[in-house]
């Protein structure tokens, strides 16, 4: 059983839940940017929630199936079609040998997860099938898919009836005016009190430079720095620090102008100060943001961050039991 890639889409990569353990050497987690949608697509086809799927961004691929298969598409509203016939998202679909899966225009969100029963069978590299294109590592030949590629699929583990679907209240809304919750910290003390207030008051817009490494935002007021003599080794710009590690979700603001939130293919460290970190519960939301979309940041404390984390885990558990 194989998938023949007829059209690649904008950037379609093989992803699972990622490759932990090598960040200290500069190899990031990778894995699906919206892990909830990735898990949903997998569960809909009877896979384990972390099996390898295809992550398509903005523009879907075109794929011919060499054998009958069970598939599902979850995440962004990127409408799937089988031989040109519209199909629902968040639903178990049956596709026949020789049929082609394609996609209509993106309606909302940014990333769609395409799961196939049995999972995408690329080799495990450092424990994961995820693609890290910057390091030419993992996935299919360490890169996004190209027309002409062929992907193998594993053996299906459980059978799921076509038409199974994720209840509306368990589909995460992608595209409603988003708020990213942030725990201020790291080098927060480098900016003035007024700058800190402005950052959370302002409405920001997703910049075109938004990818798996990080999302850049524009439109808020520049951040004013607390004056200091730059420490030895940091560099002369007030936004420079002695190069340190960057947490996933950390918000760096080079030059104090355009915040960048690092994501699954993060650079592991560098010399720009950070004002805080997006909480783990909201990381999936970033993966569904479109360029030019407006959004806001909201300051929360650790108690709220942990409560949000529990809420997200509870929703993932409900999703799992609803599809069991």
């Amino acid at each position: 059983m194989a998938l023949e890639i007829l059209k690649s889409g904008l950037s379609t990569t093989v992803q699972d839940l990622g490759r932990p353990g090598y960040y200290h050497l500069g190899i990031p987690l990778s894995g699906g940017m919206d892990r909830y949608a990735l898990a949903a697509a997998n569960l809909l086809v009877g896979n384990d929630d972390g099996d390898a799927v295809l992550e398509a961004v903005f523009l879907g691929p075109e794929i011919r199936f060499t054998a009958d298969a069970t598939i599902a598409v979850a995440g962004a509203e990127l409408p799937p079609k089988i031989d040109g016939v519209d199909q629902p998202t968040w639903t178990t679909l049956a596709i026949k040998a020789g049929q082609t899966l394609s996609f209509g225009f993106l309606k909302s969100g940014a990333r769609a997860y395409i799961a196939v029963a049995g999972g995408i069978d690329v080799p495990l590299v450092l424990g994961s099938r995820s693609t890290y294109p910057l390091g030419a590592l993992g996935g299919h030949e360490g890169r996004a898919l190209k027309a002409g590629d062929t992907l193998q699929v594993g053996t299906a583990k459980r059978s799921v009836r076509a038409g199974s679907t994720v209840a509306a209240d368990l589909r995460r809304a992608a595209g409603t005016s988003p708020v990213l919750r942030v725990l201020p910290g790291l080098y927060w003390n480098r900016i003035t009190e007024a700058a800190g207030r402005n950052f959370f008051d302002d409405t920001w817009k997703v910049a075109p430079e938004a990818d798996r490494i990080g999302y850049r935002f524009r439109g808020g007021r520049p951040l004013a720095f607390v004056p200091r003599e730059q420490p030895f080794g940091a560099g002369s710009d007030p936004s420079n620090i002695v190069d340190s590690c960057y947490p996933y979700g950390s918000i760096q603001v080079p030059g104090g102008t355009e915040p960048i939130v690092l994501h699954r293919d993060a650079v592991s460290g560098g010399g720009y100060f950070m004002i805080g970190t997006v909480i783990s519960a909201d990381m999936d939301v970033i993966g569904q943001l479109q360029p030019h979309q407006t959004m806001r940041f909201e300051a929360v404390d650790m108690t709220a961050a942990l409560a949000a984390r529990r809420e997200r885990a509870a929703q993932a558990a409900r999703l799992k039991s609803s599809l069991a």
Partner: protein
Amino acid sequence: MKTRYSFGGDEHIFVEVDEEMSLEAFFTSLSMTNAVKESRIKGVTEICPANASLQIKFDPDVIAPDDLLAELKRLEGAAAAAESTVNTRIIEIPVFYGDPWTHETLMRFRERHQDPSGTDLQYAARINGYASVEAFIAAHAGSPWFVTMVGFVAGLPFMYQMVERSKQIQVPKYLRPRTDTPKLTVGHGGCFGCIYSVRGAGGYQLFGITPMPIYDPNQEISYLRDFMIFFKPGDIVKFKPVDRDGYDAAVQAVETGRFDPLIRPTTFSLEAFHADPAGTNKKLLEVLRGA
């Protein structure tokens, strides 16, 4: 030095050993990294040492953030008292300074540079008080460098020049980061040298290129078969200037599996280095030469 702790969201703790860079700060962050590793705190999933700081990733479902913070503070004293002698290795890295590939790149991004009229080497030589590019290269390749962090992208070493602070090369980063840097470029930003392990974005000044790959995801290069990444924190590097012929010969040797990097085991003591930097470096170079 004053240790500062901050949460990076609900999954990371950032520990800043010092705001400014020094070998003391690096050694403290390294011994703290080792202390955290050895303490096997449940819920700690990864420890990333950096130049003068470290970052701990944890699972808050296993350990409460405040409990982990208390554990780390408890370890701080032990880490500060640790011995600052390491068993390590010294590696010779050939560099083709002022090569045509980084030259093409730096000319392409000239409008993002502090001094669009010259090259990065000319700029760095001038602002660091060297009379010529040749004198600057002699200084860059003259002393060893300490690898104080691996990261940014896969396997990229940050290197700290092993000379007195007054002699350390310092340059600003590009005004705006480039979107492209050739693979294996030798660069410099702030007080740090680096080798870009992969092609990609970057903001450091561009000095030259090495023929020696330091990252191989396919693990086909002879000295990267055991692991795809060459460097680890604590490695010592000595650059060796080569010309176009030397560069081409080394590239060919890499391609045919005959390139054998010069690597020698050695010991480094921070106290001995501070007591006599020039003497310590001279001994390190003797170790490298097999004397």
